[in-house]
């Protein structure tokens, strides 16, 4: 692969290349970066979906700004959509109708923009879940995790503002709820609402204001954050799953150019195809059917877009039992806690987790190898509990649709969700942790005894046994990578003379020791397990030793596979 052996480029191209290289010295940088290696796994592509849908959002959004008129000026519609001719509406809504029915490709572009937004936030969620469950947020990547949380938060706000711009029925209803939460703020609520809306709801200024935030300020911040996210990723290298040749200091994967670039480019077009396919065939946000918003309009059956669903749900199921009045001023806890508190729990919890986990485990080492989720059962269980909590709130946001569709009483759904958000996460935590531990036991079993070959053999004594075979070296590598999870709190509980150290005597110290114990206690120890040392392998008998519990099944050791010849080794050195 030496450059000397590469065929010479045509003279004209060489001239241009040399001209640029003489001035910018790009060749060296290009060689280094084009050969950068990316680990190969489907779950490492999820963030790319977000990047691609963001690009699609930017492009389709620019198209829409060419015709959209962010004005709340009142006009009577006189466009080509017959049903609403002669109806009074805002210029924002009328221009959205114009884009829909009079601009060539306008409706498709609107639908692309909206579907891409749904896909964008959804891909952020699954990307974040992947990072969480594989522990890829650990040192040295905490800052990038925080940037990711910021992107997620801003994306939701950006979506809410975009949803509010067309001034159709759901726009206005969404804004009304937004204003309601604003009003619930103690002391400053009324002022904040009047300031934002320039007077009473809905006023005449909110759409122009949201417009400049939606098309300028927030996208610019998002773009900057995404750029920072990528630069840090590039600098720190991607995490990888354990396997042959993969260490904390060496990345195994596909080189950036040409293989990964082609793959990523193809993936962009696939993402684009799915979004355009949806936009062409599946109607989304039919503003012409909704009609314009007026302050007296209110309707059942309208929801925010899915990413606001958990907030909608928390507002719907939260009781008014805690509303209080102080000196004649109402403090509507039934709006404050679900409207702002739950959002705080979600984003605050996400942002704090890397630091909380590092504090509990006392783990200050850098990690470039991703955890297999089963090997961190408490974290995985907590993640499942979080998904359940979020998911139930999200479902509660559509309780009227669920009630109507499945013919369940509305009040019943409210109580199902009220109880469910307490019980569900606990059950999810317990089940997930048990599954993880079961998989760990299965892993240890496989490591010691090899895999079940499905071949039944008869022993000379007449006994039938299933022959176990040795796992591939790759599988052995993956299984051996599990580190023994012992707490690494660096302050010893007691010094040489048996005196408790002040740090572990303090309240926080005790809490931390307890948490560390909880975090690691149930983990299955792999200490002293030698690959293929179990005696199933040698005389295939099931009598006795070794843990035989755990999940039995035909699933192969996933993540383990032989390195194919297109995989290039090397290139990644961590400083």
């Amino acid at each position, binding site marked *: 692969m030496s450059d000397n052996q590469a065929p010479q480029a045509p003279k004209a191209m060489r001239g241009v290349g040399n001209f640029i290289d003489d001035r910018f010295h790009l060749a060296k940088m290009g060689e280094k970066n084009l050969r950068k290696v990316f680990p*190969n796994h*489907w779950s490492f*592509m*999820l963030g*790319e*979906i977000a990047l691609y849908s963001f690009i699609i959002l930017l492009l389709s959004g620019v198209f829409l700004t060419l015709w959209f008129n962010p004005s709340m000026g009142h006009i009577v519609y006189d466009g080509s959509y017959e*049903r609403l001719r*002669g*109806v*009074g509406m805002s210029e924002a809504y009328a221009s959205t109708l114009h884009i829909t*029915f009079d601009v060539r490709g306008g*409706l498709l572009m609107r639908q692309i923009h909206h*579907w891409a937004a*749904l*896909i964008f936030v*959804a*891909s952020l969620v*699954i990307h974040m879940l992947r990072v969480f469950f594989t522990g890829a947020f650990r040192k040295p990547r905490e800052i990038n995790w925080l940037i990711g949380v910021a992107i997620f938060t801003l994306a939701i706000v950006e979506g809410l503002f975009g949803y509010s711009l067309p001034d159709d*029925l*759901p726009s206005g209803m969404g804004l009304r709820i937004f204003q309601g939460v604003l009003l619930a703020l103690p002391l400053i609520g009324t002022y904040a609402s009047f300031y934002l809306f320039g007077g009473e709801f809905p006023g005449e200024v909110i759409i122009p204001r949201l417009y400049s935030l939606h098309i300028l300020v927030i996208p610019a911040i998002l773009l900057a954050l995404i750029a920072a996210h990528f630069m840090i990723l590039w600098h720190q290298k991607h995490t990888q799953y354990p396997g042959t040749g993969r260490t904390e200091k060496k990345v195994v994967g596909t080189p950036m150019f040409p293989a990964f670039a082609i*793959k990523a480019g193809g*993936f962009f077009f*696939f*993402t684009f195809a*799915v979004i355009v396919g*949806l*936009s062409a065939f*599946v*109607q*989304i*946000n*039919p503003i*012409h*059917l909704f*009609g314009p918003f007026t302050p*007296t*309009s*209110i*309707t*059942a*059956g*309208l*929801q925010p*877009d*899915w990413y606001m669903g958990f907030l909608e749900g928390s507002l719907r199921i939260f009781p008014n039992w805690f509303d209080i009045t102080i000196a004649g001023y109402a403090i509507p806890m039934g709006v404050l806690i679900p409207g702002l508190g739950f959002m705080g729990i979600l984003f605050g919890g996400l942002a704090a987790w890397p630091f909380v986990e590092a504090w509990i485990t006392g783990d200050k080492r850098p990690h470039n190898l991703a955890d297999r989720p089963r090997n961190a059962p408490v974290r995985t269980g907590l993640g499942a509990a979080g998904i359940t909590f979020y998911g139930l709130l999200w479902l509660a946001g559509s309780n009227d*649709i669920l009630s*109507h569709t499945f013919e369940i*009483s*509305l*009040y019943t759904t409210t109580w199902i969700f009220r109880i469910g958000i307490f019980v569900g996460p606990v059950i999810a935590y317990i089940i997930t942790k048990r599954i993880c531990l079961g998989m760990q036991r299965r892993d240890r079993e496989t490591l010691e005894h090899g*895999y079940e070959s499905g071949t039944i053999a008869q022993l000379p004594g007449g006994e039938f046994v299933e022959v176990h075979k040795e796992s*591939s070296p*790759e*599988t052995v590598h993956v299984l051996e990578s599990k580190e023994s999870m012992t707490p690494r709190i660096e302050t010893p509980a007691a010094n040489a003379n048996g005196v408790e150290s002040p740090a572990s005597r303090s309240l926080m110290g005790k809490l931390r020791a307890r948490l560390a114990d909880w975090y690691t206690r149930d983990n299955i120890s792999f200490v002293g397990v030698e690959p293929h040392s179990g005696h199933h392998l040698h005389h295939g008998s099931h009598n006795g030793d070794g843990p035989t519990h755990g999940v039995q099944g*035909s699933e*192969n*050791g996933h993540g*383990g*596979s*032989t390195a194919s010849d297109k995989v290039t080794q090397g290139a990644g050195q961590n400083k």
Partner: protein
Amino acid sequence: MKWITARRRHPLAGYVVVIIALAFFGVGYTFVAPATSPAQAQNASAESDLANVDLANGRELFNQSCASCHGQDGKGITKTEAGNAGAWGPDLTGVGAAAVDFQVSTGRMPSANPDAQMPRKPAMYGRDDINDIAAYVDAQFGGGPGIPVNVPGDKPKRADFESEADYEEATELYQSSLEQYTGGGDTEAGMKLYMTNCAHCHSWSGGGGALTDGRWAPDLNSATPRQIYEAMLTGPGAMPVFQDSNDEVGGEGGAISSSEKQSLIKFIVDLENEPNAGGYFGLNRVGQVAEGFIGWTVGISLIVACAIWITAKQRAHD
């Protein structure tokens, strides 16, 4: 068998078995499940003259199908009076012909279970019989709002006609009366009235929605203009009454005038007939919940499947 033996340890085999089992039970259930009772025969021609009602027939039908719950005298039977029989029903004094026509022509009455909200069903009686019962109830138990005969009612059904030509003629007549009726209203007024008074239960699309205490607001798109009009006049179930402004009954009057009702009905009919401009799949006009569901189940799932595909490597053999 060899084919199965070779594949039964495939990593996807378990999923395939589950899918086949689910499909088996799903399809099997549709055969085993009790079929809904077929619609009763309709013996009516399209529109009959309300002047020709047969009060005797009305009385007979009332005693047959209504009196067991509403009482021979129409004063109703309370739950305690009904006792274990469970056949109780409200007082019909002053409900009028419109209420009877609404309840019977939408199939809600006669009802099998008075304790639950009645769903829309195929009507048990034809047009003539309904008119007879309505006239009997109106005459016998004190008058109320009459059937709004100028509002387009039942769409003609093929089964009610001897020949294709008669049916087509009736359909044409119905269409022209519908067009004439909905052509007259004012969209903006209708939209405002709908959004202020109707949408918070029946939803923006007319698709209906959930209400408190296990009740629900029904789908408006399966109702005829006349049934919508009658519902406004009589306020069935949890629905409030919206009288015509020239009504003397009730004294207050004037909630929504008959021309405003016309605009309102025009809005509902127009919205229902409006094509889904955004694509072949209108998602039943459920809105954002369906969109989010599709975004996750179709959108993200397809893209992730592609990610799995392009990063796939040959599996190790263990």
